[in-house]
C-alpha cells in the first residue's frame, strides 16, 4: 500500500484512454466515490471492463451517461438503455463476454495464466474467430487473459496495509480484479487499524492494493 488518497487525486492518476476494471454487479459492490470523481474530472475515452454497466444514475451508469467511456468489455448491458443507445449510435464499442468467461479471463490475467479453456460459448456467436482446443477428447474455447491499467474496487472493510474484506453479494468481481489491475485503488465502507481484520477474513491481501481512498467525510 502506497497511501490513502482523495477521490479527486485518484481520478487525476487515471488518464484519458486508460483501461479500468471496475468491481460491482448492477452497482452493488461498485466504488461510487471513485466513479463520481472520474465524472467530475471529465474523464474521456475510457475502456471499462466490468460485469455490467448498471443503470443510468448508478455506478458505471454514471460514466456512460457522462460520455467518459469509449469501450466496454462486459457480460450484460440489458438494464442500461443508454449503453444500448450509444452502442447502436456507434459511440461506445461493446464486447459481450459470458459472465463466467469474463471473470476467468480477468483471473487468468491476474494470475499469470495464458488463457481460459471453457466449454461456454461453443457453437454460438461467442466462438467466432476463437481457437478451439481439444483436451482429452473434449472441445474448449480458448479465451485470452484480461488485464487493465487500473482496477477500481469497492470493499467493506480495509486496513492501512491494504487488506480488504467484502460483504455478501458485494464481493462479485472485486477479489478477482484486485489481481489484474496494474494499479489497484480500493474504496472501503470503513478503514480499521492494522491488525483488526483477522487473517482468515481477508479476501484481498494488502500487497495487491496500491491505494485506498481516504474515509468519506
Amino acid at each position: 500500500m502506497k497511501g490513502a488518497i482523495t477521490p479527486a487525486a485518484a481520478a487525476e492518476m487515471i488518464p484519458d484512454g486508460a483501461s479500468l476494471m471496475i468491481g460491482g454487479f448492477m452497482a452493488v459492490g461498485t466504488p461510487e466515490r471513485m466513479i463520481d470523481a472520474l465524472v467530475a474530472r471529465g474523464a474521456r475515452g475510457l475502456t471499462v471492463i466490468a460485469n455490467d454497466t448498471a443503470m443510468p444514475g448508478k455506478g458505471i451508469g454514471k460514466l456512460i451517461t457522462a460520455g467518459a467511456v469509449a469501450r466496454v468489455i462486459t457480460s450484460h448491458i440489458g438494464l442500461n438503455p443508454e449503453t444500448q443507445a450509444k452502442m447502436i449510435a456507434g459511440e461506445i464499442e461493446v464486447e459481450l463476454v459470458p459472465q463466467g468467461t469474463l471473470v476467468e479471463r480477468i483471473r487468468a490475467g491476474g494470475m499469470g495464466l495464458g488463457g481460459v479453456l471453457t466449454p461456454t460459448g461453443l457453437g454460438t456467436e461467442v466462438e467466432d474467430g476463437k481457437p478451439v482446443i481439444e483436451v482429452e477428447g473434449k472441445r474448449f474455447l480458448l479465451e485470452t487473459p484480461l488485464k487493465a491499467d487500473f482496477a477500481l474496487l469497492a470493499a467493506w472493510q480495509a486496513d492501512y496495509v491494504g487488506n480488504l474484506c467484502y460483504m455478501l453479494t458485494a464481493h462479485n468481481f472485486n477479489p478477482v480484479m484486485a489481481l489484474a489491475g496494474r494499479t489497484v485503488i480500493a474504496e472501503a465502507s470503513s478503514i480499521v487499524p492494522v491488525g483488526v481484520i483477522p487473517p482468515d477474513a481477508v479476501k484481498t491481501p494488502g500487497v495487491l492494493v496500491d491505494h485506498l481512498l481516504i474515509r468519506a467525510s
Partner: protein
Amino acid sequence: MMDAKDLIARRVAQEIKPGMLVNLGIGLPSLVAGFVPASLGVFFQAENGVIGLGARPTEGMEDPHLTDAGGGFVSAVPGAASIDSAMSFGLIRGGHLDMTVLGGLQVDEAGHLANWKVPGKMVPGMGGAMDLVTGAARVIVAMQHTARGASKIVPRCTLPLTARRRVDLIVTDLAVIEPTEAGLVLRERAPGVSVEAILVATEANLILPGDIPEMTLV
C-alpha cells in the same frame, strides 16, 4: 383462472427435489422459489454472489449488499454462503449446480435455447445464461408459449443460440415439453388446454405419446 406466470412457476417447482442447488433466472423463473416448500432443504444460488437466497426482506430491512442477479433486495437463509463471481461460475460450469430455470425467446426441435439477443433490436448480453445452460446438471426453460401470437417453440432457432446443449424441459402456460434425441415430446397439458390447442400454438413439430395428462399442480 390462474395467472399464466404462476401456473408455469408452480409446475416448475415440482421439478425441484430435496437438497438441490438451484439457480433461478430473473423475471418469471424467480417466481418458482415461492412454490418450493422450505422443508425440501433446497438452496437457491444467485449467480451474483450468494448461496442460500431468501425472500425479499420486510420493508426497511433491506441491505444494499444483499441483492439477487436482477438487483432486487433479498435475504439470506440460515447456512447461507457468500461467494465471489469466480466461485459462483465455477459452481455453475463445474456441474455443481443441480438445476437452472431460465426464460427463453425461442427453443427449437433440437432443444436449443435462444435467450440473449435479438439482432438489430435488443442486445442485453448473455450475462450468466451461456454458462448456466452449458454447465447446469438440468436446464429448464420457463416461458410463455407464444409472444404476440407467434410460437416461441420453433423448428429451428432464428435467434442466436445461448448454447449447443439440449435443454432438459420446457414449461409454458400451455404445456410441458421434453426435448429428446428424437425431437420435442409433449408430456403434459395445462389445465383445460387440449392437445389440439397446443399443436395450433406450436410452430415446431411435437411428438405425441399415447398419454398426455393434464399437469397436476400441488
